[in-house]
């Protein structure tokens, strides 16, 4: 294991201790009380909670999530290419142009199909 990895992981786990400690300070300083009303989910001024937390959401949100996956992964693909663009020559550039144009085509199709038209 390299020294850098050791350092990073120590920092990481150091944080994993310190932040919960900050949070748990309240358990030491704060009051402790309970009750039915206190345990209820928040509702703006009405006595009983209206509606459920596990309601259904518009399917558009799921579509967005899937689209995000596609575009995010494609964007990450471009990073190594960007680093070495200067060495790659014209062919490397044109390949990525084709790739990005295909990506754009997909986006245009999505937009034209109205996947992202709300209401």
């Amino acid at each position, binding site marked *: 294991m390299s020294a850098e990895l050791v350092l990073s992981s120590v920092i990481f786990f150091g944080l994993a201790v310190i932040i919960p400690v900050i949070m748990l300070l309240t358990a030491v300083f704060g009051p402790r009380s309970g009750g039915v009303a206190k345990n209820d989910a928040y509702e703006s001024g009405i006595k009983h909670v209206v509606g459920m937390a596990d309601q259904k959401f518009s399917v558009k949100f799921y579509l967005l999530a899937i689209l995000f996956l596609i575009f995010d992964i494609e964007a990450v693909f471009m990073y190594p290419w960007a680093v070495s663009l200067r060495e790659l020559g014209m062919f490397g550039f044109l390949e990525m142009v084709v790739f990005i144009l*295909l990506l754009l*085509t997909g986006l*245009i*199709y999505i937009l*034209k*199909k109205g996947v992202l038209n709300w209401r």
Partner: protein
Amino acid sequence: MLDFIIILPLLVVGAGAIALMLLASMENLSEGSTALVSIGIFAFAFAVQLMVSVSGNVAPYETAFSGMLTASTFTKVAGLIILACGLFSCMIAQTYFTQNKFSSPEFYSLMMFAASGMLLLTMAAELITLFISLEIMSLAIYVLVGYDRSRIKRSEAVLKYLMLGAFAGAFFTMGAALIYGGAGSTRFALISKYLATNSFLESPVLVAGTLLVIVAFLFKVAAFPFHAWVVDVYDGAPLPVTGFMATGVKTAIFAVFANFIVLDNGMKGVWVDYLFYVAVFTMFAGNLIAIGQNNLKRMLAASGIVHSGYLIIALVAVGTENFTGGVIIFYLAAYAAATLGVFTALAYLGGTDERRDSFDDFKGLAKVRPYTAAAITIFMLSMAGIPPTAGFMGKFYIITDAIRADQMLLAVLGIVSSILSMWYYLRLVIMMYFKEPEESFEVSGVSLAPVGTMILAVSVFAIGFYPVFL
């Protein structure tokens, strides 16, 4: 530049698919013109493939794109068959959608995406390329199978196909990973080189890896232990998709299967023993299933299993030295012509919502529509393997090849299976010719499918007379 010439047909189909997809999103294409455009694109790609194929050589590992793709006469002709399948499937679709209303331009676009996946699959000479092209093809086909969302039968089909197909994909990936672990490369040429110096059986990783890859292939071609899905899926899929799946997918997979199995003599030697049993069981299981069917589509699906069995015989018989794949490709062409012929005929005879789908529905067709009945008879005879059709020649080449490879038993069993299959092919012929018609088989709408039927009926003979240089 030579590399790009090899994939030129692929580029044509792929660009066509993308262009059609964009046009579809603009919503300014009518249904009929989309079909015509897509037929045009397939025809153009076919012409391009033909031109590429003319300047061909027969080296097994003529590689392109630094060993990722291979191009030989075998792959080029497989590409031709696939593009022709796409062309005729679009004709079927054009007619089919005059009677079944769930079309949208994306249908044709997906067809082309599937075709480009298949083209890439035939040329794949590397496991990762193979997997990607397999998925390009499969994903498009999954969507196509479930294209009509309003009917429960389609949903059932797509669910079965998707679940099992995903399993096959997983098997393939696992196998590819193991082969990479064993041989240190995903390229066929390098794996072959590794196997030339190291014994195949000494590396358990390679044995397991090739087993998994072969399982994935066997699944996709619906061979014996993995054939259970095929009847329901072919029955549930829309007619054009069934035709395309039965022919295009089979062609692509067998092309790459052959490319894979001829990697190394030692490896082939190990698996041939098992493929022998797979071939036998595939033929007889397919026959048993087909005999019990009353539905035409289900019968054709089951007979597809039988034809996979014959093709596996051909695989068993191929030699790793000087591999040309002529027998396989000839049989695939003959099978594709006959199957697509039946499907083109069904496209206009089927009626609204595929109303006529069982043997009984075609009683007395010959009295009302003699030409169509004659064409269907030709296709059935070709599939049954009766001279002078292409089907007979295909079977003939496979049997002689098997005898030449000292697989006498396999040759005999192939002939027995062929005789068994007469039962259900001729049953339809009997229905058409020796029963009285109960309806008038009216066909609505002007369409292209009758033309396709005619062309394919002619080509069944044409392919049969085409000499094959084994």
